[in-house]
């Protein structure tokens, strides 16, 4: 038996491969409509107002009982700060990047940290660290392949991911994009860690076999993520890596990046990926939609399947859907606690 831990201790112990008092429950994105309304935040201000952001995202911890507090809400901060066009969505639809650059030279990031959305993330980290010292304060960031995809356009990334395997010239082009992305990643990562983030959670959504060649992931994606991850480790911070879709063919590569934890979605079989990932803790992989319309039975079943499959943290596949209900989130947390009491 491990003595009772705080949420932060629990998450950090899991990432450090140490025993925990119960399995941590964590999340990636947290733009939950019910909590936005409950905390009195207003669209679209909560994306650029640190106080509103913290008031809303912290309800995932204080009300639902999750172990981490995650900010910002979506994967558009890097892009908007670089001057790309972003459509702000709705209270229940996340913002989306609508334009891209033609050449890597067009990307200017000298004033990246001055951007109001970047600043909001940084301020929100500081504020939540102050207000909730017992929770694992987590920055939700865009990983290098996905950021490169936002810079050049996702379809171009997909096409280039095969062309660069065939022609050296295309590989050079790919590296130019990835290098710019990595520079930006590092500036943002350093600011987040300095602000006090306990964990950096990186989504590399576009590194998925659903969009790019798995060979490309191994040849370009893994080294890029590793370079960024090593940088983050040198700052003294652990990091998690999420990739969408059926990641079974690339989980070995994900595990080799040095990430302290991997996050996978419901398209994979947990027992299969935990076997391949070996030592590296895997989090997942509850179908997010269950938080919107799942029954208690379904939620509990999905939680237990993932944990029986060897997951070391419970997490929703690709993040928390905006229309999630607080009672379902609580059912999820309870199911994890029950499983832990029984099996740990």
């Amino acid at each position, binding site marked *: 038996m491990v003595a009772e831990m705080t949420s932060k201790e629990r998450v950090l112990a899991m990432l450090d491969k140490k025993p925990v008092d119960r399995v941590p429950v964590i999340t990636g994105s947290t733009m939950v409509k019910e909590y936005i309304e409950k905390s009195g935040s207003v669209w679209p201000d909560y994306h650029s107002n640190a106080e509103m952001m913290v008031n809303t995202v912290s309800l995932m911890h204080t009300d639902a009982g999750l172990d981490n507090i995650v900010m910002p809400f979506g994967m558009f901060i890097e892009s908007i700060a670089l001057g790309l066009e972003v*459509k702000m969505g709705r209270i229940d639809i996340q913002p989306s990047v609508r334009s891209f650059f033609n050449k890597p030279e067009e990307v200017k990031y000298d004033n990246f940290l001055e951007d109001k959305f970047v600043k909001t993330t940084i301020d929100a980290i500081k504020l939540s660290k102050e207000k909730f010292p017992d929770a694992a304060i987590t920055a939700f960031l865009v990983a290098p392949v996905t950021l490169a995809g936002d810079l050049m356009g996702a*379809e171009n990334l997909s096409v280039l991911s*095969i062309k660069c395997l065939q022609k050296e010239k295309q590989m050079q082009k790919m590296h130019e994009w990835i290098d710019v992305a990595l520079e930006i990643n590092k500036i943002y990562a350093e600011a987040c860690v300095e602000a006090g983030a306990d964990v950096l959670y990186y989504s590399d959504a576009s590194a998925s076999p659903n969009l790019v060649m798995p060979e490309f992931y191994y040849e370009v994606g893994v080294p890029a993520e590793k370079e960024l991850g090593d940088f983050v480790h040198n700052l003294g911070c652990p990091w998690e890596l999420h990739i969408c879709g059926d990641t079974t063919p690339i989980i070995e590569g994900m595990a080799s990046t040095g990430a302290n934890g991997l996050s996978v979605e419901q398209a994979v079989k947990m027992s299969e990926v935990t076997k391949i990932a070996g030592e590296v803790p895997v989090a997942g992989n509850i179908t997010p939609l269950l938080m919107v319309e799942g029954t208690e039975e379904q939620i509990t079943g999905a939680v237990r399947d993932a944990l029986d499959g060897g997951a070391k943290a419970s997490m929703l596949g690709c993040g928390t859907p905006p229309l999630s209900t607080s009672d379902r989130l609580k059912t999820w947390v309870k199911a994890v606690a029950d499983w832990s009491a029984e099996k740990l």
Partner: protein
Amino acid sequence: MDDLPEEVQGIIEELDEAAEDEDEDAIEELTQKLLDTGADVETITLKKLALLVMDGEEEMTQGWTRVAIQIGLDPFKTLIEGLATGMSLIGKKYENGEAFVPQLLIASNAMYGGMDLLAPLMKRDENSGSKPATVVIGTVEGDVHDIGKSLVKTLLSANGFNCVDLGNDVPASRFIEAAKESKATAISMSTLMTTTMAEMPRVLKMLSDEGIRDKVMVMVGGAPITTEYASQIGADVSPHDAASAANWLKAAVFDFPPESVRWG
């Protein structure tokens, strides 16, 4: 192609290179040389085009499309038996888990590259009987994911359908208007987000309200869309990927009343 005489194979290789270099003069000269050997250049060209599209070789596909034009191959035959056949081949592989999305995308670029050259030669005779069936296609409102939608469009075009592409983030009413305007045979809707799935039943309801639900078939798709969901909301089908969507629709139009009967 391996059983061709050595001389012919040699010229084919030279043509590949000229096509890769986009050297139009060399292509013209080599095409003549190929014809002079007496080989069945038409069959060779169609086979070549299918393989090049399948492999996503855009420049070479364009080069060999020039060959097709020079030897006077019927542009429709070039499209259907050459370019589109290649797209279907890679689509089949993708369906079987033997190919990935980037391969579909480069094949699609290659096919369109060839089609651009054929387009000016394909002036349709307005009075000639068989008009291709029209599909109105788009990603629903609130969702900007359109890579899958465009692949569905590519495969439908490759199978002879005329596509009216509304793009992404398409309001429900636009689907209805476009279907009426184009006297569509089918509507194809995509979404990749659970948050925007509910737009699909809205479009179906509008179709019913307008009294035109029975005039069009409705296909829905995208990662979160299941067959159960499709039937639950009253869509006709949700094939699981772009290649099967095209195959399904091709079969389904046979049992569907023709445009003139449906739209009057």
